[in-house]
């Protein structure tokens, strides 16, 4: 009898197996074309947004993508323009990943991931003309708008870049700047209490991220565990005309042209879906 019970105690239950052999656990699912959380390989997590929930910000968006959630708030301030660009306002994107969202992050100055994402978004703004910076000018050489775009992650479960970018674009589309006039004699800017103007976006680039598991399985919208298990990630940024605004492949596993092309169709579909979600949410405001 004792022998039987001993044998029983060596059977691992699913949770223990997943902890001990996470890669093998994933393989068992992926060979059946499904992921442990029930998604198909190319399926993105359910995404929802809530617009203008922060009343003190000029534009804001709360986004949930599975268990990842971020808050984006845009604060507008009046500042002096740069000397070399007297007619252009500027945008300062910043992504914060603090210990609030996951134990992966430590308190203190922003870590590499947060800085790298801020930099990527900043580059995207500079190279893809999302906003006409001339429209942020209040008075040439005297006053321009500065948009502080802050993204704070409150729950981290992977794919933070997609979440951050979509929340920023959503918040920007809902941005309401007060109508202002520059009074030259006093060198002051006066804002009207009632009238607001919104900003027109020249393009709406959105991203779709994939990771490569075991060199052959491509998983869309990875959660934290999937990100840790795979060393290679692929991010596509598409604008509304289905033109690419960026591709980045991080990590050392070589990927063939076919595997990359395999993702592009699903990436276009995903970014289109997000755009539709944003439009329909804005209509219901």
């Amino acid at each position: 009898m004792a022998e039987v019970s001993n044998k029983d105690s060596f059977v691992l239950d699913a949770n223990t197996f997943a902890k001990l052999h996470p890669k093998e656990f994933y393989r068992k699912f992926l060979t059946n074309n499904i992921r442990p959380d029930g998604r198909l390989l190319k399926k993105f997590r359910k995404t929802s947004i809530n617009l203008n929930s922060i009343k003190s910000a000029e534009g804001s968006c709360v986004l949930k993508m599975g268990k990842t959630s971020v808050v984006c708030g845009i604060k507008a301030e009046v500042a002096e323009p740069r000397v070399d660009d007297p007619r252009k306002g500027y945008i300062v994107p910043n992504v914060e990943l603090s210990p609030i969202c996951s134990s992966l992050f430590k308190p203190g100055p922003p870590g590499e991931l947060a800085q790298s994402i801020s930099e990527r978004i900043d580059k995207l703004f500079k190279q893809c003309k999302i906003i006409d910076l001339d429209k942020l000018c209040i008075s040439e050489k005297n006053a321009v708008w500065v948009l502080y775009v802050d993204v704070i992650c409150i729950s981290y479960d992977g794919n933070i870049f997609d979440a951050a970018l979509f929340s920023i674009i959503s918040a920007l589309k809902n941005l309401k700047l007060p109508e202002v006039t520059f009074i030259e004699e006093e060198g002051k800017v006066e804002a009207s209490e009632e009238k607001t103007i919104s900003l027109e976006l020249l393009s709406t680039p959105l991203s779709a991220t994939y990771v490569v598991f075991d060199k052959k399985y491509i998983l869309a919208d990875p959660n934290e565990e999937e990100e840790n298990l795979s060393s290679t990630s692929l991010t596509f940024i598409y604008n509304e005309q289905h033109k690419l605004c960026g591709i980045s492949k991080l990590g050392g596993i070589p990927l063939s042209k076919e595997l990359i092309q395999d993702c592009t169709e699903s990436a276009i579909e995903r970014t289109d879906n997000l755009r539709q979600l944003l439009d329909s949410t804005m209509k219901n405001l």
Partner: protein
Amino acid sequence: MPGETIRADKRTSSQIRPISSVLSSLNRADGSASFSFGNSSVLCSVYGPQEVKIKDELLDRATIDVNITPQIGIGSTTEKNMERIVREAFSDVIISSLHPRTSISITVQITQDDGSIISTIINAVSLALIDAGIPLHSTLLSVTCAILNGEIILDPTNEEMKDASSIHVFAFSNTSNDIVSSESTGVFTEEEYFKCSDICKLAVSSVLKFVHTAIERKLQKEQKN
């Protein structure tokens, strides 16, 4: 080639700038190399495998640590982003499982930046890793290209990158035909992306030839001494 436009520095669109490199230029480092594409040059040192900080220790492989210092001042988000690109690109090239619970530390000093700097850094790091005798799966090399006025130009300078509609950095290894690392910014189409990848792959093979000669010459010198 006839019909090709001549660029400001008298190169054709498919020409990279003159490459140069010095191996083992630093005395105390385990491995070091400087690499330059024309006026873009960096100096890289590699230490490792060495002791690792407890919080960074990995039980099954070595921790790879990349530090990039710009020409002037301390590193900003731009350098942090490059550090991430370089570290992730080399994460599967270095056979890190051979040295678990250690760290391999890569330090890069940009000495001159005239465009295509990420590619210059990747090439310098590759050479320094070889010089340090760190076990590698393959040699990873990189070339940048840009699309300027609808034409693909290789190895752009800062001046050309400023006006370019898109910039593409590709890294290839000598053991595979596929893209190991890529970073593209700007607006472009899928077709252009793959065209750039093909052109960069060709250019990388000529950089690889250069790297081979550089290492051979260094070994010959060492044998003489």
